[in-house]
């Protein structure tokens, strides 16, 4: 008989091992799924994990994509992880990402066609404020009216999507766009364009911001009182109150920070890789970032690695559906397996498996 025994304290070894075990298990289960679909599992796994980085034919295109895709994931996931650590569940980063993009883009477009170095920094600030305000809605509602921030933040994603559609069809539509939906393209507006900093690497300001966020979060959680309070609130809310944590302030800080970072991610995306506000601007970074946050164990360095891994499966998945004809749904299922296995294996950090007859010690 197999049983789970609670460990006296969480296993240090398994905290680091679980993500690796989860990735391996995902490869095995995913491989079986690909085999059932009639594809060569080894080739499929290789196409997803290896080819985007090292295949001579594709790497030149897909290597820069790695940073482009990973940056928003990491930026959003870092913000989410602060709240998740404290037991504050912002599920609506996608909406905050959209609102950040709209706010930032609107500021940039308002200056068009003036050229000045100040425009891009202003857009960055506006993007952060857009995400922050959108996240403050569930925050304020929770603090003052005890609503559930999971529901409110999630539902606000759909509201944000409608605002996005309205903006691309109305207020922010390109007046010279022959009536097509979508704003002006920032690629042709130098002062507002979030261009590649080093050509051919995918490195743009969003990547820089993501790295800064990782360092900031690391210092906050490891060295600062506020980070300690965040962890304490997540571990033991009553002890946190006893220790002098103000829960309302903490909720607003966590939701505000995650909203601002998601807004920044949206701004860097709209002014760079995407280039314009359009109806289908958002592609789910805000939701995928939830997986990234957990895959990275809610730890800043873990999130950095998890963001890169997740970006890899995105790019590799696209490549696999292009080259091998694997359906996009199968790729999504593959990514879902990653979270599933991670949460399943996670049990091992707090419990140990023992074999043999049950006995109450």
């Amino acid at each position: 008989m197999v049983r789970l025994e609670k460990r006296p304290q969480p296993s240090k070894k398994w905290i680091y091992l679980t993500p690796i075990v989860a990735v391996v298990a995902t490869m095995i289960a995913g491989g079986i799924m690909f085999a059932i679909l009639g594809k060569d599992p080894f080739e499929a796994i290789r196409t997803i994990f290896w080819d985007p980085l090292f295949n001579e034919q594709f790497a030149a295109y897909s290597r820069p994509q790695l940073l482009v895709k990973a940056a928003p994931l990491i930026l959003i996931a870092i913000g989410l992880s602060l709240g998740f650590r404290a037991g504050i569940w912002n599920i609506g980063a996608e909406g905050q990402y959209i609102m950040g993009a709209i706010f930032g883009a609107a500021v940039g477009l308002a200056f068009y066609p003036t050229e000045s170095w100040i425009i891009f920094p202003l857009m960055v600030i506006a993007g952060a404020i857009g995400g922050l305000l959108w996240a403050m809605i569930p925050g304020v509602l929770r603090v003052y009216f005890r609503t559930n921030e999971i529901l409110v933040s999630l539902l606000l994603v759909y509201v944000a999507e409608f605002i996005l559609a309205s903006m691309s069809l109305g207020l922010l539509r390109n007046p010279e766009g022959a009536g097509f939906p979508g704003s002006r393209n920032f690629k042709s507006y130098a002062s507002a364009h979030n261009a590649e900093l080093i050509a051919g690497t995918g490195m743009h300001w969003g990547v820089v911001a993501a790295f800064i966020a990782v360092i900031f979060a690391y210092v906050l959680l490891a060295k600062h009182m506020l980070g300690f309070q965040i962890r304490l609130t997540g571990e033991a809310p009553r002890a946190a109150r006893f220790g002098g944590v103000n829960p309302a302030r903490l909720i607003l800080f966590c939701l505000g920070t995650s909203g601002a970072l998601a807004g920044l991610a949206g701004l860097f995306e709209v002014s760079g890789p995407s280039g314009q506000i359009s109806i289908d601007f958002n592609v789910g970074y805000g939701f995928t970032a939830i997986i990234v946050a957990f895959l990275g164990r809610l730890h800043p360095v873990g999130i950095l690695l998890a963001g890169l891994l997740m970006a890899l499966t995105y790019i590799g998945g696209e490549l696999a559906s292009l080259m091998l004809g694997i359906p996009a749904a199968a790729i999504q299922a593959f990514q879902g397996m990653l979270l599933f296995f991670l949460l399943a294996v996670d049990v091992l950090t707090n419990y140990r498996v023992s074999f043999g007859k049950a006995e109450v010690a």
Partner: protein
Amino acid sequence: MTTALLEIEGLTKAYPGVVANDHVTFTINEGEVHALLGENGAGKSTLVKMIYGLVKPDAGTMRLRGAAFTPPEPRAARADGIAMVFQHFSLFEALDVAENIALGMENPPKMRDLAAQISKVSEEYGLPLDPFRTVGDLSAGERQRVEIIRCLLQNPKLLIMDEPTSVLTPQEVDILFKTLEQLRSEGTSILYISHKLDEIRRLCDTATILRLGKKVDTCNPREESVRTMAEMMVGGTLHVPERVPHAQGDVALEINNLSVPSPLQFGTSLKEIKLKVHKGEVLGVGGVAGNGQDELTAALSGEVVSASGAILLHGKSVGHLPPQSRRAMGILAAPEERLGHAAAPNMSLTENALLTANVRKKMARKGFLNWAAAKDYAKDVIRDFDVRTPGPENAARSLSGGNLQKFVIGREILQKPDVLVVNQPTWGVDASAAADIRQALLDLAGEGAAIIVISQDLDELMEISDRFAALNGGRLTEPVPAKGLTVDQIGLMMGGAHDMEVAHHGAA
């Protein structure tokens, strides 16, 4: 002449790294109340789990009425007439009493018949209980009755009770003891596990004392004093807290008409509490659990704020201040619930040291933490209060209850507070550790701190308090000198007879 019911011979059980029971031999006679005594970790729990079939012994034999007795599982033990009431109840709050009892039965009868049986047993043994009440609405004492009646329905020959009075009020203890005495007179044997030596002297016929897994002695508790039994338990002379007499100091803490609604749904609101605590004084606050103890602790620690003038520290208003500001000024507190309230279970002792000591011990500068200082402080607490743990990096939940309690109390005492509020400071702590904690509190008072000890252990309060007051429905009685108070007077105070019977003792 008594006959043996259960003979235990050479029972041994080892776990990796520790021998929980080492050749334990004793006999429980028919119709006797047999006490099993020992400090935390002495092996009492393992022993009764072997009798109840939860744990298999490595060596040794048990004989029940002369026949070999090796229960492979609790069901077999129950079939042989062994019943057990655990310290922690296993009841479903959403179900009613009869449903809960039916769940534990092999072949439950019809609900109506079962309810009739429950009513009959509860009447017979003086354990009032309505079979159709929802368990969630019952007090701890009533929940225990559900467990006891569940056992009695099996007509047990041996009833095992693990720390049954730790959750009971004095009145409920009386009811329980009457029931147990009735069972004894009917020939049922009882194996009674407890820390409370007074109770054992009152109730038990024989006591077997375990220390570090070995049986060290058997005695007749009626012929021993509490002190001699405690010394058998710890295997040395027990240190009884002493206090140095002192003159009454200035008022350190003053509470004026403190009224606070309870933050908890089923909590008790504090009503117009008035109190003055002097420097160097220990004020004991008694009362039946749930009469505002947690709320008073929270109102003083700052977890719940009140009108600013309701609480004065050295004449300065602090009622409106949050916990950290109060700590900075010198009011410290230790709540009752160790895991999850006084300490974060999954965090290390270093982090838990930081939890309350960061202000007074300056563990942060401009918000940036000085982990080395926190770790050093955790080490100081571990050393000075003899906390048994491999080191400060261990999680709070890995400590035993008594050790964690020593850490939590020590963490506050070493910060040299002006006012210290402790709620149930020795709850679930073994005798020698409890004596250490009480001594530490008295020493702190000797250094001039004002101490409020909130406890349900009246012996403890009488031992260390200068003055005594009782909480009753969120109101606090006028404090009276503790010396010379009789149990009757205390009972009246707890029952809410404000200033009636106790008035002639002269309010302080």
